[in-house]
């Protein structure tokens, strides 16, 4: 029973994990306060012979305090989250020299179109591979997500990347991997009876290995 976030390999994942743990400790504190308080009250104020409750309709001072504190905490959290969110998701901020791929979801497979050796999509050396996603380490990757039929969701847990693929739209997603490794794309949005098997392999290569792999594909095509 290992309830932990999987090891993170991506740059965005550092931010996401950091925020996760900030919220974790904030909520843990609130959790202890509320649950501890309830238990304490149950013990301390349980009905006993001759006990009379304290008659009060409340306290405006307390209301202000416990309104203001959450407002402040949430404002800071919201602002920080929003900033980081914009950095991760706003397509206008994506690195212009990122390596682009096209990923098309379809019941129940991922078709990955590679930019080929010239690193450009839409040229003659593009090729499409079923359910296998290879890309180089330490490079900005932008995936243009599409879908043929229904909504799918492109999810690589170790890279902390997730975005729906919606038919009729092209949704760019930016991520990277800071280490070579083998992962999987999972579909995170119910897409039909084969949803649970809609997965593809992800291989993050060292740069040289990626080029070798590209070359091997070029001969196979």
């Amino acid at each position, binding site marked *: 029973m290992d309830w932990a976030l999987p090891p993170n390999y991506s740059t965005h994942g550092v931010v996401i994990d950091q925020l996760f743990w900030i919220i974790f400790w904030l909520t843990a504190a609130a959790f202890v306060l509320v649950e501890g308080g309830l238990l304490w009250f149950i013990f301390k104020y349980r009905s006993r012979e001759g006990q009379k409750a304290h008659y009060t309709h409340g306290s405006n001072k307390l209301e202000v305090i416990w309104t203001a504190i*959450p407002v402040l905490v949430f404002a800071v959290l919201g602002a920080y989250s929003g900033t980081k969110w914009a950095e*991760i998701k706003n397509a206008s901020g994506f690195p212009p020299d990122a390596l682009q791929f096209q990923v098309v979801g379809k019941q129940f497979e991922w078709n990955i179109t590679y930019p080929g050796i010239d690193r450009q999509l839409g040229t003659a050396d593009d090729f499409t591979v079923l359910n296998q996603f290879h890309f180089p380490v330490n490079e900005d990757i932008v995936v243009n997500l599409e879908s043929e039929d229904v909504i799918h969701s492109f999810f690589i847990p170790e890279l902390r990347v*997730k975005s729906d693929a919606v038919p009729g739209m092209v949704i760019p997603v930016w991520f990277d991997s800071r280490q070579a490794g083998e992962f999987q794309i999972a579909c995170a949005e*119910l897409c039909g009876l084969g949803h649970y098997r809609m997965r593809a392999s992800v291989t993050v290569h060292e740069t040289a290995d990626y080029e070798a792999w590209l070359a091997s594909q070029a001969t196979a095509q």
Partner: protein
Amino acid sequence: MATMIAEATGQAILTEEHKQSFLRKYIFSTDHKVIAIQFLFLTLFFLMIGGFLAMMMRYQIAWPDQPIPLGGIFPESMVASGYILPEFYNSLVTMHGSIMVFLAIMPMLVGVYANYLIPLQLGAHDMAFPRLNMYSFWIMIPAGILTLSSFFVIGGAAGAGWTLYAPLSARPDLTGVALGQQMWLASVVLIGLSSIFGSLNYITTVINMRAPGMTWFRMPLTVWALFITAILGLLAMPVLSAAGIMLLFDQTIGTSFFLPEGGGQPLLWQHLFWFFGHPEVYILILPAMGFTSEILAVGSRKPIFGYKAMVWAIISIAFLGFIVWGHHMFQSGMNPALGLTFTISTLFIAVPSAIKTFNWMGTMWRGNLKLHTPMLFAIGFVAMFAIGGLSGIFMASTPVDIYIHDTYFIVAHIHYVLFGGSLFALFGAIYFWYPKMFGRMMNETLGKIHFWLTLIFFNLVFFPMHGLGMVGMMRRIYDASGYRHLEGIADTNALITWSAFALYASGFLFAFNFFWSLWRGKKAADNPWDATTLEWQTPSPPKHGNWAEVPVVYHGPHEYSHPGVTDKDWLAQNERPDVPSPAGGH
């Protein structure tokens, strides 16, 4: 509408009790109390069905390689060679959610308790439109029949998730489900109609039928919560009906509102659905908050801490509830710039929930806590709702949501809110108002055992799901094997499933207590909990018309342990004040 006009002309209002036939009195009754009890039996039945579907899902998730016991009793289109089929699993997922939301929790909160409590707590004889009220129950019957029978039509029941994301829900060729999906939609349109009729009644009754002296800020918090809930339902359900009708057209007559091939927009469905869906979440929690406030005040023998703050918290939740729907769609491909707006509004909607939690704790502080079963469930509500609220903060933070969206973290969150929240409060409400409804008490010992079993197993089922979400287990998957990042979770899933079985079983203890007490329960006094609100100041169960004489209200709703009252620790709302009017009572 015709009904309303007919009632406007004074034709339809039944006042005479004695000449009614059995059919009029107990079946097609216009008495709000009878309708509430009808809703109670209906929703308990659907609660049991919805839970059963969850048990089948849990079996499949925990032991995907083992045939399900007694699988042979299911048709081959559901269970083949003993194994649950993926398409049937999707139907289970969809129908569990839909049944619980639309046919169990929502009608139990609103259909049962808004119906029962609004007239009684306000000192009214009945609802504003009794006949419309009767229709709102009877419309639920065909809706329920459509829902249940959809399992047995060709293609099976709806399988696109209770959120029905198009195009999966709109194109039968992609799921194999055609008629089942259409029946789902028809059923939801009917439920919407029922809910609108109900809301119309509740709102009108609260506005126009309060007893003399029952000013707005003397209304019990339950009525406040149900009133605001009715407004939410009134404004949100029609949007779902409109969207559902468009989806039905996409399914049946070849339009393409939500299909990109014909120029339609899949995301439009999500916007419409969540514009309904998020207020719906508050429809499912506000009444529960109301019951909890009521029971906590009674059980603590104290006035509600910060009554007005509680009222304003309810109102602001309702208002904010209409502008946060986009937080369900952070990863949907919606323009990321909208993310920030929805993050802020979402975080701010947590503020009134926090205020309520602190005020509940304030109510218990220095109280004289009577830990009877309803009180235990009310405290359980606060404890569990707090966890559900806190886990929501993770999702509101958009970057974190990238990772946990569509994982079991979400499943844990909604169940802490809808089960740990709504259902705990509902159990509390059933134990609490049972003596008023049926004139007998439920068994206290069985009730306490039921509470502790529910609390323990509920947490064993849903707390580990946070862990599954952290590991990255996706929602709605039929079989988690085959994913490397999910290799270590089989034990957790088995633990959850065993606990889920125990949780379901403890529900039968409740059911036994409920039915046994109908005949064998201790006779209830008119006011067994020494409570102050009006419903306790009339016989248990109240007669047709509720009051021999219309009560006059002198105080706010929760006058417990007033220092000026010496013979007892409560002062009913309609008791003449022999003491100076309590400070801060309004």
